């Protein structure tokens, strides 16, 4: 029995904390709103997408629209804030995108990032690449968006997520 304990101790020591769960929340919705639109007020305007809208979003963005619901807020003075998720390597990455009244990206904030590598997606310089992008932008890695080594999947999915939210704005928020 003692030998069994010795053998099982290392994996148990590792698995225990992991099973208990780990999540890093960097920003709440309110904090993301204030970061992108300082001083503005927000009106919740959650949108339920129709099948036709989902198809139009997927056609425009080239990205699958998984959810039927869009968590959006109308910003005082014009513009929108949308909170959404993309698939990370292990878990979902929650992010917020602020759009100007003209449909250009005002800012991107990473709210939850639980991956073990690629925390650079929270780097302001990397996120600044999205500022000013419109639905006409490619939003592709190694094109107008720089890749992050070791976190290519996360980088690509965030870029695709922004592209999809720009399509949502064009299809369902105007």
């Amino acid at each position: 029995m003692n030998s069994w304990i010795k053998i099982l101790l290392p994996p148990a020591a590792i698995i225990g904390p992991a099973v208990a769960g780990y999540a890093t929340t960097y920003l709440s919705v309110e904090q993301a709103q204030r970061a992108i639109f300082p001083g503005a007020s927000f009106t919740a305007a959650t949108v339920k997408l129709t099948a036709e809208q989902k198809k139009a979003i997927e056609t425009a963005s080239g990205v699958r629209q998984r959810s039927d619901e869009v968590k959006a807020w109308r910003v005082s003075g014009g513009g929108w804030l949308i909170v959404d998720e993309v698939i990370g390597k292990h878990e979902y990455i929650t992010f917020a995108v602020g759009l100007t009244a003209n449909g250009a990206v005002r800012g991107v904030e990473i709210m939850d990032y639980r991956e073990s590598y690629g925390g650079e997606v929270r780097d302001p310089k990397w996120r600044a690449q999205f500022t000013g992008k419109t639905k006409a932008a490619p939003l592709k890695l190694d094109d107008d968006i720089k890749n992050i080594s070791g976190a290519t999947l996360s980088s690509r999915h965030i870029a695709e997520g922004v592209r999809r939210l720009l399509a949502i704005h064009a299809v369902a928020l105007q």
Partner: protein
Amino acid sequence: MQFLSKSLVRASRRSLGLGGAIFCAVLATATESQADEHLFGWVRGAETLPGGHADAYQFFTLRTGKAAGRYEAWDFDTEVEYGLSDKFQLGVSVEQHYFDIDNVEELDNQNRYQFGGVELSAKYRFLSPFKDKIGLALRLEVAYLAQDDVAGIEQEEIDVAPELVLHKNFLDDTLITHFNIGGKFAWGKKPAEEYDRELTIQGGLGVAYRFAPNWFIGLESHWRSEFPKADFHEHSVIFAGPSLHYGAEKWWATLSYGYQVYGQGIDEPRNGKTYAEEARNEVRLKVGFNF
């Protein structure tokens, strides 16, 4: 489970020494990063470590079941890898075995630890599975094996094993496929085997689906055919079975099972199984850390 406990306890007393020490050292230094995560027990993907980062694995493999008698062979592989660049990584591993064999044809009864050998590996990624249409990597292993993995018989094997790795993702990277194909050129297999040189053609195929955050379930198959002196067919075997993978922020683990679905060996009954150098079942647990 009794057969597992007896041999594993014995194995733990001796063979886990070196690998365990390395493994614990790795645990103590594990921090954050993640790449080259193994979704399968035997089949590999095309990802590589980011430059300047390292990872470490501990493999526990149990091979059990022959035509008759009791055969339990444990393999303990401890591996450390380092990314020289975002596309190129090097690795070194130590292989150890523990054999619990009783009344198996042509094998000595034994209950003992055996040092296996050391292995160096290099992997270069040409195409990324996340950016390109398909991931492509070339992997090369060079090994010195002082004892064979069938029964720990002495040898002076040096082998070189190039492998092509293909990796394709679907459905927003939630459905993942890997395909490996390669060869192994071995010298110095006497006296473990009758002939000194051997060519092995080997490969594998795996399909995994992310059914929940952190969790992948999959099916994999791996196979090999061996040709002594690169001259005649000695045996071929195909294993297939399920795999389960959990990936967390700082570590991951994969449990895989392979059943010998087909085998054929020279001078063996033509009954769809080969046991001279293979076992009926293979179970592998991998635990990996990135730091």
